[in-house]
């Protein structure tokens, strides 16, 4: 085998490997759908966040506008403080927007849905969303449902 | 008189509990051909490996060209080894390179010669061992004798100051044996290099060696020029050199008494 043929093969191999990595990153994983632009952060306080976790999606009308970037527990008020990174191009959430935790499908992952209000001032970096609805906890619902059935 | 190139003092070496060398003193003169002879398994190959610092002595020191070769760091040792050639008993060619590239290997590693010059030097050395026509063969396509001759060409390609030959003649037909003898002799005389030959071929060695050491049982049994040995050799050396089955030399690896072993008497 000549040196040149060997070099060509190695070149093909490396190119195929890099192409495969690229394909997995862009076509298989969500890298291409993750925002790369700048973000601003807003926070919201929930009584119960259910199964929400860091990197959970934040949506408006079903469109991905950002992700959960931090979750803390505020022991003074006994609430969870959730920080969301919202992409800069979605900059028109009024200050009376409502943040609710929903579940995709019956058992799917949990996400935050932002519903804009009617004010003319918009949320900006560091703002706090006043209106926050906690997660619907499936176990609680089922528990209530069962106890209702039993009590009948 | 010039100081010897290799000075071995009080050398002892063990393999596990087995003593290979026991307090050996031995000098290799510059520009001479020194032969090391001795029964199979006495440690001739081991001695060459000690001299080239592939093995560490248990006790004693080995000076090569005025330097304690076991006290050198890797860089100094490699500098020293560039001036040494070694013909391994098995040839030890690099199996993934063809004959030409094997011989060219030390040149490509240690010199900045251009390809034309390398080709020139390699072909000269291959021609000297009669294998210029085999340049494009792979080591797996060579016979044992050819393999050894390629290894010889590789050992001499850098024109070292000292060459260690481990059994250069074994496996060679009478013609290539003669050619190799002449080659070793001429290189020694013309280039002034020092040769150490390990060999069993008494006649060949006597013909070209300037000095002979006969070692056995971890000691030097006899030494001298071929002529001296011819005349004054001990019973021991006489038996060894003439190849007689009976005498003081043991043909057997140390063992229990034959009869005891055979009939399992304990």
């Amino acid at each position, binding site marked *: 085998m000549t040196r040149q043929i060997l070099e060509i093969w*190695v070149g093909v*191999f490396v190119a195929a490997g890099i*192409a495969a990595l690229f394909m*997995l990153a862009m*076509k298989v*994983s*969500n890298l291409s759908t993750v925002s790369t632009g700048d973000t601003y952060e807003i926070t919201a306080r929930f009584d119960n966040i259910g199964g929400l976790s860091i990197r959970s999606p934040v949506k408006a009308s079903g469109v991905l506008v950002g992700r959960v970037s931090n979750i803390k527990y505020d022991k003074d008020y006994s609430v969870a403080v959730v920080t969301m990174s919202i992409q800069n191009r979605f900059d028109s959430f009024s200050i009376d927007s409502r943040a609710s935790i929903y579940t995709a499908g019956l058992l799917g992952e949990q996400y935050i849905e932002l519903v804009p209000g009617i004010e003319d001032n918009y949320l900006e970096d560091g703002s706090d969303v006043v209106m926050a609805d906690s997660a619907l906890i499936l176990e609680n619902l089922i528990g209530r449902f069962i106890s209702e059935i039993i009590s009948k | 008189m010039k100081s010897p190139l290799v000075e071995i003092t009080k050398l002892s070496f063990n393999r596990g509990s087995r003593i290979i060398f026991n307090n050996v003193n031995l000098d290799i003169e510059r520009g001479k051909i020194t032969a090391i002879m001795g029964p199979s398994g006495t440690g001739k190959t081991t001695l060459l490996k000690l001299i080239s610092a592939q093995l560490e002595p248990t006790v004693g020191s080995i000076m090569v060209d005025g330097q304690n070769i076991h006290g050198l760091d*890797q860089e100094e040792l490699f500098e020293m080894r560039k001036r040494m050639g070694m013909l391994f008993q098995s040839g030890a060619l*690099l199996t993934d390179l063809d004959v030409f590239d094997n011989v060219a290997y030390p040149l490509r*590693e240690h010199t900045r010669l251009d390809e034309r010059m390398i080709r020139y030097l390699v072909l000269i050395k291959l021609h000297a061992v009669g294998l210029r026509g085999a340049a494009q063969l792979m080591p797996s396509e060579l016979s044992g004798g050819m393999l050894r001759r390629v290894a010889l060409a590789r050992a001499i390609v850098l024109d070292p100051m000292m060459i260690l030959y481990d059994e250069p003649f074994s496996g060679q037909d009478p013609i290539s044996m003669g050619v190799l003898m002449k080659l070793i002799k001429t290189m020694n005389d013309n280039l002034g290099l020092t040769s150490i030959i390990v060999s069993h071929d008494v006649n060949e060695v006597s013909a070209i060696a300037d000095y002979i050491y006969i070692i056995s049982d971890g000691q030097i049994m006899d030494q001298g020029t071929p002529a001296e040995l011819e005349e004054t050799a001990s019973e021991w050396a006489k038996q060894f050199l003439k190849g007689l089955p009976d005498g003081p030399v043991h043909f057997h690896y140390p063992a229990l008494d034959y009869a005891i072993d055979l009939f399992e008497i304990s």
Partner: protein
Amino acid sequence: MQHFLRKTVAVFESLGDRSLDSFERLGRSTLFLVRVFKSIPFVFLRPWLLIQQLYSVGVLTIVIVLVAGTFVGMVLGLQGYNILVRFNSESSLGTMVGLTLVRELGPVVTALLFAGRAGSALTAELGLMKTTEQFSALEMMAVDPFKRVIAPRFLAGFLSMPMLAAIFSAVGIYGGYYVGVYLLGVDDGAYWAQMQKSVDFHEDFMNGVWKTVVFGFVATWIALFEGYDSVPTSEGIGRATTQSVVNASLAVLGLNFILTALMLETS
């Protein structure tokens, strides 16, 4: 009674002997690795050495990886479809195939194939070089075998593994696509969209890549050390080659569990 005592002592003795042995081997393999690291800069001065090894380690492993990846992907498509169709969620087939391959099967199966194909070849090659005194010959020619022989092989193994695993996962995803979409009628768009929605770049893809990096490192290290440390006889080479595949495979499976646990912990 005395006999029993003597036997017990003998058992402990051999146990102690063995653990001492394995400690000693661990020490030697660590020193070996240190020497390899020290020699790696040299490889960048001689890229040709690396290219040669990328050929024998990477290119020669690619066929088996392509074939295995395709079949594993196809079987995932088949099994996944049959499970998901019970819940009426066969549109999530892409999710299942993608996640399984990227997170687990891609790195692990590729590493096992790598140990069997490239690792055993590396061990046998080094074992043969040792048996035929080629290492000694190199040293006598004032050439450091670590720089010339071992470091390029190490680097090639380390670099090849992530690429091979990526190729495995990529063809596997197309294998699953072929079975799921072409043969079983899952919606084309759903296959890709569901996959992309649930395979996270950091949590799934990158963690998979990290696994392959670790596996490549460990499998290559074990293969080279077993060869370098082998008993220089033909029997010794055979034993070393078997050992190399067994040890590398076990190491990969064990490390996979540890890495997975760590990754789930931190996410």
